[in-house]
Protein backbone atom coordinates (compact mmCIF):
# COMPACT_ATOMS: atom_id res chain seq x y z
CA UNK A 1 0.00 0.00 0.00
CA UNK A 2 2.89 2.29 0.58
CA UNK A 3 3.62 2.35 -3.10
CA UNK A 4 0.44 4.00 -4.25
CA UNK A 5 1.71 7.07 -6.04
CA UNK A 6 0.92 10.31 -4.32
CA UNK A 7 -0.64 11.66 -7.50
CA UNK A 8 -3.25 8.89 -7.47
CA UNK A 9 -4.15 9.74 -3.89
CA UNK A 10 -4.40 13.40 -4.73
CA UNK A 11 -6.49 12.70 -7.78
CA UNK A 12 -8.73 10.47 -5.74
CA UNK A 13 -9.38 13.06 -3.07
CA UNK A 14 -9.83 15.66 -5.76
CA UNK A 15 -12.47 13.54 -7.47
CA UNK A 16 -14.25 12.86 -4.18
CA UNK A 17 -14.43 16.53 -3.28
CA UNK A 18 -16.46 18.12 -6.05
CA UNK A 19 -19.81 16.87 -4.76
CA UNK A 20 -19.33 18.53 -1.37
CA UNK A 21 -17.70 21.59 -2.89
CA UNK A 22 -20.53 21.98 -5.38
CA UNK A 23 -23.05 21.84 -2.59
CA UNK A 24 -21.06 24.49 -0.73
CA UNK A 25 -20.87 26.67 -3.80
CA UNK A 26 -24.58 26.29 -4.32
CA UNK A 27 -25.21 27.47 -0.74
CA UNK A 28 -23.01 30.51 -1.26
CA UNK A 29 -24.67 31.31 -4.55
CA UNK A 30 -28.06 30.98 -2.91
CA UNK A 31 -26.93 33.39 -0.20
CA UNK A 32 -25.98 36.00 -2.77
CA UNK A 33 -29.35 35.59 -4.49
CA UNK A 34 -31.34 35.50 -1.24
CA UNK A 35 -30.18 38.93 -0.14
CA UNK A 36 -31.25 40.38 -3.48
CA UNK A 37 -34.65 38.74 -3.65
CA UNK A 38 -35.87 37.99 -0.13
CA UNK A 39 -37.53 40.54 2.15
CA UNK A 40 -37.11 39.96 5.86
CA UNK A 41 -36.93 41.57 9.26
CA UNK A 42 -35.37 40.36 12.44
CA UNK A 43 -32.91 40.84 15.25
CA UNK A 44 -29.34 39.67 15.62
CA UNK A 45 -26.49 39.79 18.11
CA UNK A 46 -22.86 40.59 17.43
CA UNK A 47 -20.16 39.49 19.82
CA UNK A 48 -16.40 39.78 19.91
CA UNK A 49 -13.87 40.07 22.71
CA UNK A 50 -14.91 42.99 24.84
CA UNK A 51 -18.10 43.82 22.99
CA UNK A 52 -21.61 42.45 22.73
CA UNK A 53 -24.43 44.26 20.97
CA UNK A 54 -27.95 43.63 19.69
CA UNK A 55 -29.40 44.97 16.46
CA UNK A 56 -32.56 45.08 14.41
CA UNK A 57 -32.61 44.72 10.67
CA UNK A 58 -35.33 45.55 8.14
CA UNK A 59 -34.67 44.42 4.59
CA UNK A 60 -37.19 45.01 1.84
CA UNK A 61 -37.08 44.13 -1.83
CA UNK A 62 -39.38 46.55 -3.61
CA UNK A 63 -41.41 45.78 -6.70
CA UNK A 64 -38.94 47.50 -9.01
CA UNK A 65 -36.12 45.38 -7.59
CA UNK A 66 -34.75 48.16 -5.38
CA UNK A 67 -33.29 47.03 -2.05
CA UNK A 68 -34.08 49.09 1.02
CA UNK A 69 -32.35 48.17 4.23
CA UNK A 70 -32.29 49.70 7.70
CA UNK A 71 -30.02 48.57 10.52
CA UNK A 72 -30.41 49.84 14.08
CA UNK A 73 -28.46 49.02 17.22
CA UNK A 74 -30.85 48.28 20.05
CA UNK A 75 -28.58 48.73 23.06
CA UNK A 76 -26.27 51.60 23.94
CA UNK A 77 -26.19 54.37 21.39
CA UNK A 78 -28.67 54.11 18.52
CA UNK A 79 -26.24 53.34 15.69
CA UNK A 80 -28.17 53.37 12.48
CA UNK A 81 -27.59 52.92 8.76
CA UNK A 82 -30.01 53.09 5.86
CA UNK A 83 -28.97 51.66 2.51
CA UNK A 84 -30.68 51.64 -0.84
CA UNK A 85 -29.20 49.13 -3.27
CA UNK A 86 -26.13 48.93 -1.08
CA UNK A 87 -25.56 52.70 -1.20
CA UNK A 88 -25.60 54.35 2.21
CA UNK A 89 -28.27 57.05 2.38
CA UNK A 90 -27.86 58.10 5.96
CA UNK A 91 -25.87 56.98 8.99
CA UNK A 92 -25.76 57.96 12.61
CA UNK A 93 -22.99 59.87 14.37
CA UNK A 94 -19.59 58.31 14.07
CA UNK A 95 -20.64 55.81 11.43
CA UNK A 96 -21.26 58.67 9.00
CA UNK A 97 -17.69 60.01 9.22
CA UNK A 98 -16.08 57.37 7.14
CA UNK A 99 -18.63 56.86 4.41
CA UNK A 100 -17.46 59.64 2.21
CA UNK A 101 -15.04 58.24 -0.29
CA UNK A 102 -15.49 54.51 0.01
CA UNK A 103 -18.84 55.06 -1.67
CA UNK A 104 -17.02 55.62 -4.90
CA UNK A 105 -16.04 51.97 -5.03
CA UNK A 106 -18.52 49.50 -6.37
CA UNK A 107 -20.19 47.13 -3.97
CA UNK A 108 -18.86 43.61 -4.28
CA UNK A 109 -20.90 40.50 -4.38
CA UNK A 110 -19.95 37.13 -3.02
CA UNK A 111 -18.24 35.04 -5.69
CA UNK A 112 -18.46 31.36 -4.78
CA UNK A 113 -16.11 30.29 -7.57
CA UNK A 114 -13.39 32.68 -6.50
CA UNK A 115 -13.82 31.89 -2.81
CA UNK A 116 -13.43 28.15 -3.30
CA UNK A 117 -9.95 28.83 -4.58
CA UNK A 118 -8.84 30.09 -1.16
CA UNK A 119 -11.26 28.28 1.12
CA UNK A 120 -12.26 24.66 1.19
CA UNK A 121 -16.05 24.50 1.33
CA UNK A 122 -17.31 21.80 3.67
CA UNK A 123 -20.98 21.16 4.27
CA UNK A 124 -21.18 20.16 7.93
CA UNK A 125 -24.85 19.28 8.25
CA UNK A 126 -27.86 20.83 9.87
CA UNK A 127 -28.40 23.08 12.86
CA UNK A 128 -31.03 25.40 14.27
CA UNK A 129 -30.76 29.16 14.56
CA UNK A 130 -33.45 31.67 15.54
CA UNK A 131 -35.97 28.84 15.63
CA UNK A 132 -35.28 27.88 12.01
CA UNK A 133 -33.58 24.91 10.39
CA UNK A 134 -30.22 25.81 8.89
CA UNK A 135 -27.49 24.18 6.81
CA UNK A 136 -23.98 24.60 8.11
CA UNK A 137 -21.14 25.43 5.74
CA UNK A 138 -17.53 25.71 6.88
CA UNK A 139 -15.09 27.78 4.87
CA UNK A 140 -11.76 26.28 5.81
CA UNK A 141 -8.80 28.39 4.69
CA UNK A 142 -6.38 26.62 2.36
CA UNK A 143 -3.41 28.52 3.81
CA UNK A 144 -2.47 30.28 7.04
CA UNK A 145 -3.23 33.75 5.71
CA UNK A 146 -6.94 33.90 6.54
CA UNK A 147 -9.38 32.79 9.20
CA UNK A 148 -11.96 30.05 9.00
CA UNK A 149 -15.67 30.85 8.84
CA UNK A 150 -18.68 28.81 9.84
CA UNK A 151 -21.89 29.91 8.12
CA UNK A 152 -25.41 28.78 8.95
CA UNK A 153 -27.90 29.27 6.13
CA UNK A 154 -31.64 29.31 6.55
CA UNK A 155 -32.88 26.27 4.63
CA UNK A 156 -36.08 27.95 3.57
CA UNK A 157 -34.65 31.20 2.20
CA UNK A 158 -30.86 30.75 1.99
CA UNK A 159 -30.23 33.78 4.20
CA UNK A 160 -27.16 33.63 6.46
CA UNK A 161 -28.42 33.42 10.03
CA UNK A 162 -25.19 32.81 11.85
CA UNK A 163 -21.55 33.47 11.09
CA UNK A 164 -18.59 32.49 13.27
CA UNK A 165 -15.01 33.57 12.65
CA UNK A 166 -12.44 31.10 13.98
CA UNK A 167 -8.63 31.25 14.07
CA UNK A 168 -6.23 28.39 13.36
CA UNK A 169 -6.48 27.19 16.97
CA UNK A 170 -10.24 26.97 16.81
CA UNK A 171 -10.71 30.00 19.04
CA UNK A 172 -13.85 31.96 18.35
CA UNK A 173 -13.03 35.52 17.27
CA UNK A 174 -16.49 36.85 16.61
CA UNK A 175 -20.10 35.76 16.43
CA UNK A 176 -22.90 37.15 14.32
CA UNK A 177 -26.19 35.41 14.96
CA UNK A 178 -29.85 36.08 14.36
CA UNK A 179 -32.13 35.59 17.35
CA UNK A 180 -35.33 36.10 15.43
CA UNK A 181 -36.30 36.27 11.77
CA UNK A 182 -39.54 36.88 9.88
CA UNK A 183 -39.57 36.47 6.13
CA UNK A 184 -42.19 39.10 5.46
CA UNK A 185 -41.64 42.51 3.93
CA UNK A 186 -41.21 45.14 6.66
CA UNK A 187 -43.68 48.03 6.78
CA UNK A 188 -42.54 51.25 5.12
CA UNK A 189 -42.61 53.03 8.48
CA UNK A 190 -39.86 50.73 9.76
CA UNK A 191 -37.59 51.81 6.92
CA UNK A 192 -37.83 55.51 7.76
CA UNK A 193 -34.64 57.00 9.22
CA UNK A 194 -34.53 57.80 12.93
CA UNK A 195 -33.74 61.25 14.31
CA UNK A 196 -29.99 60.60 14.58
CA UNK A 197 -29.51 59.38 11.03
CA UNK A 198 -27.58 62.03 9.11
CA UNK A 199 -27.63 62.12 5.31
CA UNK A 200 -24.32 61.11 3.85
CA UNK A 201 -22.46 63.45 1.57
CA UNK A 202 -20.21 62.25 -1.19
CA UNK A 203 -16.92 64.06 -1.53
CA UNK A 204 -14.37 62.52 -3.86
CA UNK A 205 -10.87 62.81 -2.53
CA UNK A 206 -7.68 63.21 -4.55
CA UNK A 207 -5.81 59.95 -4.90
CA UNK A 208 -2.77 61.11 -6.85
CA UNK A 209 -0.01 60.19 -4.41
CA UNK A 210 -1.61 56.97 -3.25
CA UNK A 211 -0.26 55.08 -6.20
CA UNK A 212 3.17 55.80 -4.78
CA UNK A 213 2.78 52.74 -2.56
CA UNK A 214 2.65 49.10 -3.42
CA UNK A 215 3.22 45.82 -1.68
CA UNK A 216 6.08 43.48 -2.56
CA UNK A 217 4.16 40.58 -1.11
CA UNK A 218 0.47 39.86 -0.65
CA UNK A 219 -1.19 36.80 0.77
CA UNK A 220 -2.40 34.69 -2.18
CA UNK A 221 -5.81 35.68 -3.48
CA UNK A 222 -5.80 39.19 -2.06
CA UNK A 223 -5.96 42.06 -4.50
CA UNK A 224 -6.15 45.82 -4.23
CA UNK A 225 -9.79 46.83 -3.84
CA UNK A 226 -9.74 50.56 -3.25
CA UNK A 227 -7.37 53.43 -2.67
CA UNK A 228 -8.19 56.52 -0.67
CA UNK A 229 -6.40 59.40 0.91
CA UNK A 230 -7.46 61.49 3.85
CA UNK A 231 -6.24 63.74 6.60
CA UNK A 232 -4.50 62.03 9.51
CA UNK A 233 -6.75 61.74 12.57
CA UNK A 234 -4.09 63.47 14.67
CA UNK A 235 -2.18 65.86 12.41
CA UNK A 236 -2.21 67.62 9.05
CA UNK A 237 -0.35 64.81 7.34
CA UNK A 238 -2.06 63.04 4.50
CA UNK A 239 -2.61 59.33 5.11
CA UNK A 240 -2.79 56.90 2.22
CA UNK A 241 -5.15 53.99 2.68
CA UNK A 242 -5.30 50.88 0.52
CA UNK A 243 -7.88 48.12 0.95
CA UNK A 244 -7.07 44.56 -0.06
CA UNK A 245 -9.50 41.65 -0.11
CA UNK A 246 -9.83 38.02 -1.13
CA UNK A 247 -13.58 38.23 -1.65
CA UNK A 248 -14.35 37.63 2.02
CA UNK A 249 -11.49 38.67 4.28
CA UNK A 250 -10.24 42.20 4.06
CA UNK A 251 -7.43 44.36 5.35
CA UNK A 252 -6.50 48.03 5.06
CA UNK A 253 -3.00 49.46 4.89
CA UNK A 254 -2.48 52.98 6.24
CA UNK A 255 0.70 54.90 5.48
CA UNK A 256 1.39 58.00 7.50
CA UNK A 257 4.60 60.11 7.40
CA UNK A 258 6.43 60.19 10.74
CA UNK A 259 8.64 63.28 10.25
CA UNK A 260 11.35 62.11 12.68
CA UNK A 261 8.89 61.36 15.46
CA UNK A 262 10.14 58.58 17.73
CA UNK A 263 7.35 56.03 17.74
CA UNK A 264 7.48 52.36 18.60
CA UNK A 265 6.17 49.56 16.47
CA UNK A 266 2.90 48.19 17.75
CA UNK A 267 0.85 45.03 17.39
CA UNK A 268 -2.60 44.53 18.82
CA UNK A 269 -5.72 42.48 18.37
CA UNK A 270 -9.31 43.54 18.86
CA UNK A 271 -11.58 40.54 18.48
CA UNK A 272 -11.29 39.51 14.84
CA UNK A 273 -9.34 42.60 13.83
CA UNK A 274 -5.60 42.83 14.06
CA UNK A 275 -3.51 46.01 13.87
CA UNK A 276 0.21 46.01 13.16
CA UNK A 277 2.25 49.22 12.92
CA UNK A 278 5.77 49.18 11.56
CA UNK A 279 8.20 51.97 10.87
CA UNK A 280 9.52 52.00 7.33
CA UNK A 281 12.46 53.96 5.97
CA UNK A 282 12.03 55.80 2.69
CA UNK A 283 14.00 58.44 0.84
CA UNK A 284 11.51 61.07 1.98
CA UNK A 285 11.90 60.17 5.64
CA UNK A 286 10.32 57.47 7.75
CA UNK A 287 6.70 56.47 7.53
CA UNK A 288 4.51 54.35 9.78
CA UNK A 289 2.81 51.51 7.95
CA UNK A 290 -0.27 50.21 9.78
CA UNK A 291 -2.07 47.09 8.62
CA UNK A 292 -5.60 46.66 10.00
CA UNK A 293 -7.80 43.73 9.11
CA UNK A 294 -9.47 40.41 9.77
CA UNK A 295 -6.35 38.38 8.99
CA UNK A 296 -3.87 36.52 11.22
CA UNK A 297 -1.21 38.56 12.99
CA UNK A 298 1.70 36.96 11.14
CA UNK A 299 0.17 37.76 7.78
CA UNK A 300 -0.46 41.38 8.74
CA UNK A 301 3.11 41.66 9.96
CA UNK A 302 4.46 40.34 6.68
CA UNK A 303 2.31 42.72 4.66
CA UNK A 304 3.52 45.64 6.77
CA UNK A 305 7.13 44.62 6.14
CA UNK A 306 6.51 44.33 2.41
CA UNK A 307 5.19 47.80 1.64
CA UNK A 308 7.42 49.76 -0.72
CA UNK A 309 7.21 53.23 -2.14
CA UNK A 310 6.97 53.32 -5.92
CA UNK A 311 10.17 55.36 -6.11
CA UNK A 312 12.05 52.49 -4.49
CA UNK A 313 10.54 49.97 -6.87
CA UNK A 314 11.63 51.95 -9.92
CA UNK A 315 15.27 52.11 -8.84
Amino acid sequence: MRFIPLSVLLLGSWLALPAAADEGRALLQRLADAERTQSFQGAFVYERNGSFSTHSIWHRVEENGKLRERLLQLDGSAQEVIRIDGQVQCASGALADQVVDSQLWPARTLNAEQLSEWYELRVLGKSRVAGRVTSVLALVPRDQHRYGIELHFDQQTGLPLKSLLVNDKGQLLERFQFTQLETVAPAASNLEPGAGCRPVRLAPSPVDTVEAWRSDWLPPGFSLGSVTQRRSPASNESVACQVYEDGLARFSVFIEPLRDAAVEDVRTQLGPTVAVSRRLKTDDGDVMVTVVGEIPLGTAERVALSMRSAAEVVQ
Partner: protein
Amino acid sequence: MSRETLQESLSAVMDNQADELELRRVLAASDDPEIRATWSRYQIARAVMHKELLEPRLDIAAAVSAALADEAAPVAPQVQQRGPWRTVGRLAVAASITVAVLAGVRLYNQDDITGAQLAQQSTQPALNIPQVNGPAMLAGFNTSEEQSAPAASAVGQGQPGWHEQRLPAYLRQHAQQAAMSTSEGALPYARAASLENR
Protein backbone atom coordinates in the same frame (compact mmCIF):
# COMPACT_ATOMS: atom_id res chain seq x y z
CA MET B 1 7.39 34.68 42.65
CA SER B 2 10.57 32.72 42.84
CA ARG B 3 13.09 32.61 40.06
CA GLU B 4 12.79 28.85 39.92
CA THR B 5 9.08 29.02 39.23
CA LEU B 6 9.76 31.48 36.46
CA GLN B 7 12.41 29.25 34.96
CA GLU B 8 10.06 26.31 35.09
CA SER B 9 7.48 28.40 33.27
CA LEU B 10 10.09 29.45 30.76
CA SER B 11 10.99 25.86 30.13
CA ALA B 12 7.32 24.99 29.72
CA VAL B 13 6.82 27.80 27.21
CA MET B 14 9.76 26.58 25.22
CA ASP B 15 8.37 23.06 25.10
CA ASN B 16 4.99 24.42 24.10
CA GLN B 17 3.55 22.97 27.30
CA ALA B 18 2.82 26.21 29.10
CA ASP B 19 -0.66 27.02 30.31
CA GLU B 20 -2.03 30.52 29.89
CA LEU B 21 -0.90 31.69 33.31
CA GLU B 22 2.66 30.59 32.72
CA LEU B 23 2.76 32.17 29.30
CA ARG B 24 1.61 35.45 30.73
CA ARG B 25 4.11 35.22 33.56
CA VAL B 26 6.95 34.72 31.13
CA LEU B 27 5.78 37.53 28.88
CA ALA B 28 5.55 39.83 31.88
CA ALA B 29 9.12 39.00 32.84
CA SER B 30 10.44 39.18 29.30
CA ASP B 31 12.04 42.58 29.81
CA ASP B 32 14.39 41.11 32.38
CA PRO B 33 17.81 40.66 30.73
CA GLU B 34 18.51 37.68 32.96
CA ILE B 35 15.38 35.92 31.79
CA ARG B 36 16.28 36.67 28.20
CA ALA B 37 19.71 35.19 28.79
CA THR B 38 18.15 32.11 30.36
CA TRP B 39 15.78 31.79 27.41
CA SER B 40 18.61 31.89 24.96
CA ARG B 41 20.62 29.34 27.03
CA TYR B 42 17.63 27.01 27.02
CA GLN B 43 17.28 27.43 23.29
CA ILE B 44 20.92 26.56 22.75
CA ALA B 45 20.64 23.56 25.08
CA ARG B 46 17.61 22.32 23.23
CA ALA B 47 19.19 22.95 19.86
CA VAL B 48 22.20 20.89 20.90
CA MET B 49 19.97 18.10 22.16
CA HIS B 50 18.00 18.08 18.93
CA LYS B 51 21.14 18.60 16.86
CA GLU B 52 19.69 21.70 15.29
CA LEU B 53 21.59 24.67 13.99
CA LEU B 54 20.38 27.76 15.78
CA GLU B 55 21.28 31.40 15.93
CA PRO B 56 20.95 32.11 19.66
CA ARG B 57 20.13 35.80 19.64
CA LEU B 58 17.52 35.49 16.98
CA ASP B 59 15.78 38.66 15.99
CA ILE B 60 13.08 37.93 13.47
CA ALA B 61 12.25 41.47 12.49
CA ALA B 62 15.87 42.39 12.08
CA ALA B 63 16.63 39.23 10.14
CA VAL B 64 13.76 39.71 7.73
CA SER B 65 14.49 43.40 7.28
CA ALA B 66 18.12 42.67 6.70
CA ALA B 67 17.22 40.06 4.14
CA LEU B 68 15.01 42.53 2.35
CA ALA B 69 17.77 45.12 2.46
CA ASP B 70 20.20 42.62 1.00
CA GLU B 71 17.82 41.88 -1.79
CA ALA B 72 17.63 45.52 -2.85
CA ALA B 73 21.40 45.98 -2.89
CA PRO B 74 23.23 45.30 -6.16
CA VAL B 75 24.93 41.91 -5.90
CA ALA B 76 26.71 41.81 -9.26
CA PRO B 77 30.22 42.91 -8.14
CA GLN B 78 30.44 40.08 -5.64
CA VAL B 79 30.25 37.42 -8.30
CA GLN B 80 34.00 37.29 -9.00
CA GLN B 81 35.01 36.27 -5.50
CA ARG B 82 32.85 33.19 -5.42
CA GLY B 83 34.30 30.29 -3.47
CA PRO B 84 32.92 27.20 -1.85
CA TRP B 85 32.55 28.93 1.55
CA ARG B 86 30.55 31.75 0.06
CA THR B 87 27.84 29.33 -1.05
CA VAL B 88 27.82 27.67 2.35
CA GLY B 89 27.46 31.05 3.96
CA ARG B 90 24.50 31.88 1.76
CA LEU B 91 22.85 28.60 2.57
CA ALA B 92 23.35 29.30 6.25
CA VAL B 93 21.75 32.70 5.87
CA ALA B 94 18.84 31.20 4.02
CA ALA B 95 18.48 28.50 6.66
CA SER B 96 18.56 30.99 9.49
CA ILE B 97 15.89 33.07 7.80
CA THR B 98 13.73 30.00 7.43
CA VAL B 99 14.18 29.26 11.11
CA ALA B 100 13.38 32.88 11.86
CA VAL B 101 10.17 32.69 9.90
CA LEU B 102 9.15 29.41 11.52
CA ALA B 103 9.98 30.69 15.00
CA GLY B 104 8.12 33.85 14.15
CA VAL B 105 4.96 31.99 13.40
CA ARG B 106 5.05 30.38 16.81
CA LEU B 107 5.68 33.66 18.55
CA TYR B 108 2.89 35.32 16.66
CA ASN B 109 0.47 32.65 17.67
CA GLN B 110 1.44 32.86 21.31
CA ASP B 111 1.05 36.58 21.30
CA ASP B 112 -2.20 36.12 19.57
CA ILE B 113 -3.59 34.08 22.44
CA THR B 114 -2.51 36.43 25.16
CA GLY B 115 -3.83 39.39 23.25
CA ALA B 116 -7.19 37.76 22.88
CA GLN B 117 -7.34 36.71 26.50
CA LEU B 118 -6.38 40.09 27.79
CA ALA B 119 -9.10 41.58 25.68
CA GLN B 120 -11.53 39.08 27.14
CA GLN B 121 -10.57 39.94 30.67
CA SER B 122 -11.08 43.62 30.37
CA THR B 123 -14.55 44.60 31.44
CA GLN B 124 -14.47 47.81 29.46
CA PRO B 125 -15.43 47.38 25.86
CA ALA B 126 -13.65 48.18 22.68
CA LEU B 127 -11.26 51.05 22.45
CA ASN B 128 -9.33 50.74 25.67
CA ILE B 129 -6.85 48.51 23.93
CA PRO B 130 -4.95 50.95 21.76
CA GLN B 131 -2.69 52.23 24.53
CA VAL B 132 0.99 52.20 23.89
CA ASN B 133 1.87 50.80 27.28
CA GLY B 134 -1.25 48.73 27.68
CA PRO B 135 -0.89 45.04 28.39
CA ALA B 136 -2.39 43.91 25.11
CA MET B 137 0.12 45.82 23.03
CA LEU B 138 3.28 43.81 23.52
CA ALA B 139 5.02 46.63 21.75
CA GLY B 140 8.59 45.70 22.60
CA PHE B 141 8.19 42.28 21.09
CA ASN B 142 11.38 42.17 19.10
CA THR B 143 14.76 42.16 20.70
CA SER B 144 16.24 44.93 18.61
CA GLU B 145 17.95 46.54 21.60
CA GLU B 146 20.22 43.52 21.81
CA GLN B 147 21.36 43.68 18.23
CA SER B 148 22.32 46.58 16.07
CA ALA B 149 20.90 45.44 12.79
CA PRO B 150 20.86 48.00 9.99
CA ALA B 151 17.12 48.02 9.51
CA ALA B 152 16.12 47.57 13.14
CA SER B 153 13.28 49.89 13.99
CA ALA B 154 14.17 53.04 15.81
CA VAL B 155 12.60 52.46 19.17
CA GLY B 156 12.24 55.46 21.39
CA GLN B 157 10.26 56.48 24.40
CA GLY B 158 8.91 59.67 22.87
CA GLN B 159 5.33 60.44 21.90
CA PRO B 160 3.38 57.95 23.98
CA GLY B 161 0.17 59.10 22.37
CA TRP B 162 1.05 58.57 18.73
CA HIS B 163 -0.72 55.25 18.33
CA GLU B 164 -3.44 56.14 20.80
CA GLN B 165 -4.37 59.03 18.59
CA ARG B 166 -4.41 57.05 15.38
CA LEU B 167 -5.18 53.37 15.89
CA PRO B 168 -8.81 53.85 16.96
CA ALA B 169 -9.43 55.99 13.89
CA TYR B 170 -7.67 53.48 11.62
CA LEU B 171 -9.71 50.60 13.05
CA ARG B 172 -12.86 52.58 12.49
CA GLN B 173 -12.02 53.62 8.99
CA HIS B 174 -11.23 50.02 8.11
CA ALA B 175 -14.47 48.68 9.59
CA GLN B 176 -16.63 51.37 8.09
CA GLN B 177 -15.16 51.18 4.63
CA ALA B 178 -16.02 47.51 4.74
CA ALA B 179 -19.50 48.19 6.06
CA MET B 180 -20.23 50.87 3.51
CA SER B 181 -18.73 49.38 0.38
CA THR B 182 -19.99 45.83 0.38
CA SER B 183 -23.28 44.11 0.00
CA GLU B 184 -22.27 41.27 2.29
CA GLY B 185 -25.17 42.00 4.58
CA ALA B 186 -25.14 43.06 8.17
CA LEU B 187 -21.87 41.64 9.48
CA PRO B 188 -19.48 44.44 8.41
CA TYR B 189 -21.97 46.97 9.76
CA ALA B 190 -22.13 45.15 13.11
CA ARG B 191 -18.33 45.15 13.27
CA ALA B 192 -18.19 48.87 12.63
CA ALA B 193 -20.96 49.58 15.14
CA SER B 194 -19.19 47.54 17.81
CA LEU B 195 -16.20 49.89 17.58
CA GLU B 196 -18.42 52.82 18.46
CA ASN B 197 -19.70 51.28 21.69
CA ARG B 198 -17.85 52.64 24.63
